[in-house]
């Protein structure tokens, strides 16, 4: 059979009693799933086209639509399951790599879910964040190992103290959560605006990814981390100067060792200008930086960027969490990075080969734990901040990441979900019904940045409140007292090796 | 300060409202020769057709005069003006002195010199009294047949009313088509056909030469071509002209109507005129001429009121337009809808089987007139394009499309419309 039709992934149930044929679904679906028949004044749906983004279901004014997974099943087989059969069939037809979007969705252990937090009882008091200050402020950047103070007068009065050490450039975060790198191109300008405005409102940062900095985003530069990636798209003097910090992107959790590819169809006039490439050409980010084949090359780029910005802003490096992550991170810190972002296995992407996304890299929980430990053992933990990325889903993930040793976390997928994303994983098609991962003007307007901003701010506010509540419960009133404080964590159902790597005790074990 | 307004219809009422926006105190006196406190003249055909009750013909609430502290003098005609001493002399001899005077005497029906026009059963059709008289005559004489002279708007509205009363009507029109002032052949054709369908005949290129009667009641009309049409009722509705009787041959300048400037003031200070009785700016033709339609009368009255109260406001001019539903077919015509000379471009959609006709007249890239028959949705957008003299080059091809709307217009113009306020027509 030249083309073997596969069971559709979803089925669309339309309650005819409730359907009023208003055609909102017809108008809104970018995949043309629904169609209206004026002769019968009815709407019908073609399930085969449905990607399961739930946009129509969300809009349907009568709740007439339900999108379900198709229960159609192959013969039960633990090895040759439906996904395997479908993938092989697709590849047999196309001869191509399978593409996907968002982060790894395979059921590898999510360590966050096997880690529990502590709380105070009797021996020390918990603190009520509603009544007492609770501090989440975090500084990202290189810290001096020691502070020297000159006492100008023999009397040791504080007013006579003179600082001899100056703090290298820092990013000040009012909550230890930043928005991950997502490029203009992979996401819409409205999505970028939402992130930028929310970062400004909350007092944190968003990251341009390798998409350059659109003119309209310059006004948020004080809350912008700009990325320098292997394609160097959109990198120019003004870009670097506008930024609050610079991040060299070596790798991405969803596709370690793989470059990026923005198809030419998405390179519109605006994107071409922002990325500084011709309209309609593919934007190919090479797998490696072709001027970085070694750690010393990285050092050169770090210092080239520091020189270019006169040592006024932190320069960090983002890597994917791979097997050797601890020594690599150590090398990066020694190469002069002011922060290291570690993107784990479950980090998101706009497009990646499925096989890479689902099989390469390690979970961020383990990566952060081993990197933090390694840097401390080497006595260089102060020299760089650690940002954990890749699959942070909730405030408890945030607080656990910080307790494991991260200074802050990057959230990407969570921020997209806040803006509407339902993880249909079809970002690479450019047909995102939610107006996020698309450049189609018909779709991008669906994301009103005012709403996007509000929802993102709400998310960060909610998470911050929860973090404060949990911190208070532990009797801690400043986030820095939790950072790397693994005594506040306990593992359940983890192997001894996992516990050792995470540097935490099993639940039930006292201090 | 004494404001005096002669006339109690659209302009007069609008003037009261305008004055009261700025001056809540000073005295306003309204003089009307009508017995009713106010009514909407366009509604008389609906009254006659029994679609609107006598109470509903009024367009202002009863306590309007009280609320606005207006002295209302009814059933008393202003007969003379003393411009020097500034007073109005009424039919009963009373003198009403004024500081500012507004003349809104409206229009008067044109009554042709036809032999036999004094027979009972021959009526004009401009006032509520006319309608009431007709109604009474029909009732008393059990009228079954009628002739309407004049296929203009008033004639047709009268026709429609009579048809509602199950009277068989024949329209006699001098021109080659009905509604000739605003409709072209195609538009008229649709209405004529619709009239025909309900048994109403339109005789064009003709007129009444003589009215014959019996026992002082009308019995038949004889047309120009000698054709005889038996009838029990004749309504003469060949048009109206400005009613300038009061000022004729006085110091106030008149032409067909009373001449006013862009502040609705006559050549005499403190004396204003508005509505059907005056000649004000036609912004389309760029001349002064009477435009006897309701919205224009209201607008002019309002402008006059503002200026009388001391707030200088300029009249931007208006142009002819009308909307009426005939035989269940809605129609709208605006501006120069039937240009006769060369130099115009006409866009058309004509579907007589659906009784739909759309016509857009363009001159120098700008729309100067439209006709919509059968489908009038969103007609106001075109009116506003005419008013704002918008260059249509960029969207001309969309003008007749079914989805034509603000979205078809240049973004800047649209934005102004959507977000901003609109100036009045």
């Amino acid at each position, binding site marked *: 059979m030249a083309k073997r039709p596969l069971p559709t992934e979803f089925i669309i149930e339309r309650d005819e*009693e409730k359907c*009023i*044929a*208003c*055609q*909102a679904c017809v*108008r*809104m679906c970018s995949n043309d799933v629904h169609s209206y028949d004026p002769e019968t004044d009815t709407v019908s749906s073609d399930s085969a086209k449905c990607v399961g983004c739930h946009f129509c279901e969300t*809009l349907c*004014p*009568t709740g007439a639509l339900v999108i379900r997974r198709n229960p159609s099943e192959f013969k039960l087989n633990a090895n040759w399951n439906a996904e395997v059969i479908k993938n092989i069939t697709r590849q047999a037809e196309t001869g191509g790599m399978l593409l996907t979007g968002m982060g790894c969705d395979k059921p590898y252990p999510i360590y966050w879910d096997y880690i529990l937090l502590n709380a105070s009882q009797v021996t020390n008091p918990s603190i009520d964040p509603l009544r007492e200050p609770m501090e989440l402020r975090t500084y990202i950047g290189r810290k001096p190992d020691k502070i020297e103070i000159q006492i100008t007068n023999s009397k040791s009065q504080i007013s006579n103290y003179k600082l001899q050490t100056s703090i290298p450039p820092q990013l000040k975060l009012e909550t230890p959560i930043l928005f991950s790198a997502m490029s203009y191109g992979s996401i819409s300008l409205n999505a970028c605006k939402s992130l930028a405005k929310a970062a400004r409102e909350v007092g944190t940062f968003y990251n341009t990814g390798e998409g350059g900095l659109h003119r309209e985003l310059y006004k948020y530069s004080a809350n912008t981390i700009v990325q320098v990636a292997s394609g160097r798209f959109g990198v120019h003097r003004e870009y670097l100067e506008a930024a609050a910090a610079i991040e060299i992107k070596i790798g991405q959790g969803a596709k370690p060792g793989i470059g990026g590819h923005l198809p030419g169809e998405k390179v519109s006039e605006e994107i071409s200008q922002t990325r500084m490439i011709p309209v309609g050409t593919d934007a190919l980010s090479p797998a490696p930086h072709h001027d970085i084949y070694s750690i010393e090359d990285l050092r050169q780029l770090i210092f080239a960027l520091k020189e270019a910005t006169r040592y006024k802003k932190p320069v960090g490096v983002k890597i994917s969490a791979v097997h050797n992550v601890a020594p690599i991170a150590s090398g990066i810190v020694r190469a002069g990075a002011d922060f290291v972002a570690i993107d784990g296995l479950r980090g998101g992407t706009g497009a990646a080969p499925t096989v890479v996304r689902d099989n390469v890299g390690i979970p961020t929980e383990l990566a952060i734990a081993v990197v933090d430990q390694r840097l401390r053992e080497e006595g260089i933990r102060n020299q760089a901040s650690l940002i954990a990325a890749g699959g942070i889903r909730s405030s408890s993930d945030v607080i656990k990441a910080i307790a494991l040793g991260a200074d802050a976390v990057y959230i990407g997928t969570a921020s997209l979900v806040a803006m509407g994303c339902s993880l249909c994983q079809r970002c690479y098609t450019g047909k995102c019904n939610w107006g996020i991962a698309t450049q189609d003007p*018909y779709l991008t*307007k*669906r*994301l*009103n940045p*005012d*709403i996007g901003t509000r929802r993102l701010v709400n998310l960060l506010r909610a998470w911050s409140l929860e973090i404060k509540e949990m911190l208070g419960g532990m009797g801690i009133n400043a986030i820095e007292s939790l950072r790397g404080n693994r005594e506040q964590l306990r593992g359940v159902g983890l192997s001894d090796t996992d516990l050792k790597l995470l540097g935490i005790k099993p639940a039930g074990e006292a201090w | 300060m004494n404001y005096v307004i002669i006339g109690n219809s659209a302009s007069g009422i609008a003037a009261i409202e305008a004055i009261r926006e700025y001056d809540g105190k000073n005295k306003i006196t309204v003089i009307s020769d009508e017995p009713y406190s106010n009514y*909407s003249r*366009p*509604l008389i055909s609906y009254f006659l057709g029994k679609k*609107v009750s006598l109470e*509903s013909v*009024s*367009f*202002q609430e009863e306590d309007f005069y009280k609320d606005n502290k207006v002295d209302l003098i009814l059933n008393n005609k202003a007969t003379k003006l003393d411009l020097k001493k500034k007073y109005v002399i009424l039919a009963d001899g009373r003198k009403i002195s004024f500081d500012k005077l507004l003349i809104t005497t409206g229009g008067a029906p044109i009554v042709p010199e036809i032999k036999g026009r004094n027979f009972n059963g021959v009526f004009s059709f401009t006032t509520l009294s006319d309608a009431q008289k007709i109604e009474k005559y029909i009732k008393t004489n059990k009228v079954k047949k009628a002739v309407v002279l004049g296929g203009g708007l008033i004639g047709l509205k009268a026709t429609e009313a009579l048809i509602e009363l199950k009277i068989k009507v024949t329209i006699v029109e001098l021109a080659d088509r009905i509604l000739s002032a605003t409709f072209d052949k195609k538009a008229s054709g649709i209405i004529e056909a619709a009239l025909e369908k309900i048994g109403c005949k339109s005789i064009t290129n003709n007129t009444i030469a003589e009215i014959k009667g019996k026992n002082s009641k009308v019995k038949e009309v004889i047309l120009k071509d000698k054709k005889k049409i038996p009838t029990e009722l004749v309504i003469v509705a060949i048009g109206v002209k400005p009613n300038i009787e009061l000022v004729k041959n006085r110091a106030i300048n008149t032409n067909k109507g009373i001449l006013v400037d862009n502040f609705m003031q006559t050549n005499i200070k403190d004396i204003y005129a508005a509505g059907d009785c005056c000649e004000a700016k036609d912004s389309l033709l760029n001349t002064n001429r009477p435009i006897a339609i*309701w*919205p224009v009368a*209201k*607008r002019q009255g*309002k402008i006059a009121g503002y200026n009388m109260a001391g707030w200088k406001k300029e009249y931007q001019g208006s142009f002819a*337009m*009308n*909307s*009426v*539903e005939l035989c269940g077919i*809605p129609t*709208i015509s*605006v501006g120069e809808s039937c240009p006769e000379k060369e130099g115009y471009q006409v866009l058309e959609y004509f579907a007589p089987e659906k009784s739909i006709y759309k016509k857009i007249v363009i001159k120098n890239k700008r729309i100067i007139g439209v006709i919509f028959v059968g489908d*009038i*949705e*969103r*007609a*106001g*957008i075109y*009116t*506003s394009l005419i*008013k704002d003299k918008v260059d249509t080059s960029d969207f001309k091809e969309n003008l007749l499309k079914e*989805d034509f*709307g*603000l*979205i078809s217009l240049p973004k800047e113009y649209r934005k102004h*419309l*959507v*977000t901003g*306020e*609109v*100036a*009045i*027509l």
Partner: protein
Amino acid sequence: MKKIIIREEYCMGCRLCEVHCLVQHSKTKNIIKAYKGEYPKPIPRIIVEEKGYVSFALQCRHCEDGPCLEACITGAMYRDKKTGAILLNEDKCIGCWMCIMVCPFGVISRNGEGKKIASKCDLCMGEKVPICVKNCPNEAIVYEEKK
């Protein structure tokens, strides 16, 4: 007064405003009955205009100097003193369509089915926020005080 502000850059063209407007102005105010059980079928008082990817919802702007107010020959069209909204007294309206002729936004329609009267936005009198605004999923129409 508060006005409905149109933000065409965020209108998705879903036309849910029309749906909800229709329901609001139906007899039953029940979405399914309004669509499936009411004759004549109610019509929305809001229009969504679409062309390419641009779209916006449009309803009576309640102009400060409303031409429809001047054009109305029956006094059916009036300004609500309390809210400043331009409303239509349906009992007085006789369907002369003068208002349609002069409305520069084209947002007054003929109520095609039942009594021949004009139909226009009434700002959902009695509701705190007009129903179209409340139900716009993307805040492409907002109800705000306008300077």
